[in-house]
């Protein structure tokens, strides 16, 4: 079995990029603020997956480390936006 794996992973990351665009459409359309945040969260997860697969596609191991840092930073961003939603519209006055 002779598969060109960098090409397969490049195809996977291109496909994830298309999915990111489709998920961003929900962020544009989304009627409420939490809808947009859900769209952002989905895009963040897809970005992590894309970076990890691009590491194989371009044969650069450092991309995986960047994906780890991106995952942790996007987690903090999500938590902060959730806190902001609670403060802005919530009952915690």
């Amino acid at each position: 079995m002779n598969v060109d794996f960098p090409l397969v992973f490049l195809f996977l990351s291109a496909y994830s990029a298309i999915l990111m665009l489709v998920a961003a459409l929900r962020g544009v359309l989304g009627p409420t603020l939490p809808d947009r945040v859900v769209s952002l969260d989905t895009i963040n997860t897809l970005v992590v997956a894309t970076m990890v697969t691009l590491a194989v596609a371009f044969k650069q191991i450092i991309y995986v480390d960047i994906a780890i840092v991106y995952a942790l930073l996007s987690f903090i961003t999500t938590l902060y936006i959730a806190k902001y939603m609670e403060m802005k519209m919530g009952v915690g006055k």
Partner: protein
Amino acid sequence: MIEPLILACVAISMIFNTLGVIGLHRFPDVYTRLHAATKCTTFGSIFATIAVAAYGFGQWYYGNAAYGNMTAHAIFALLALLITNPTGAHAIARAAHLSGISPKRAVVDILEEDRKKTGSKKREEAKGVES
């Protein structure tokens, strides 16, 4: 030997990411969208990471020593995804409920009633402490 495993992981990752994004568009309100998007996308991304780890392991096994690093780091990325993603989804759902968005076609919202009761009690206690 390891190549069919990698291809299967890539296929599972593509299928579940697609399902998650479709669910993000087809479900009626925030909570169901969150459910579809978070669960499916986390599962798909984990399988993409497993595919990368398996590829790195295969290269390392056939004598390409630099790829051992890739496997270890991919496993760390998997752990980061596995811990942070459900926590973020929970925070979003909690904030959405606190900001007053009720699920579509919901008949009863016991959490809201419960929160009103305990919240008013807590507010009174806080006032008592202040005065």
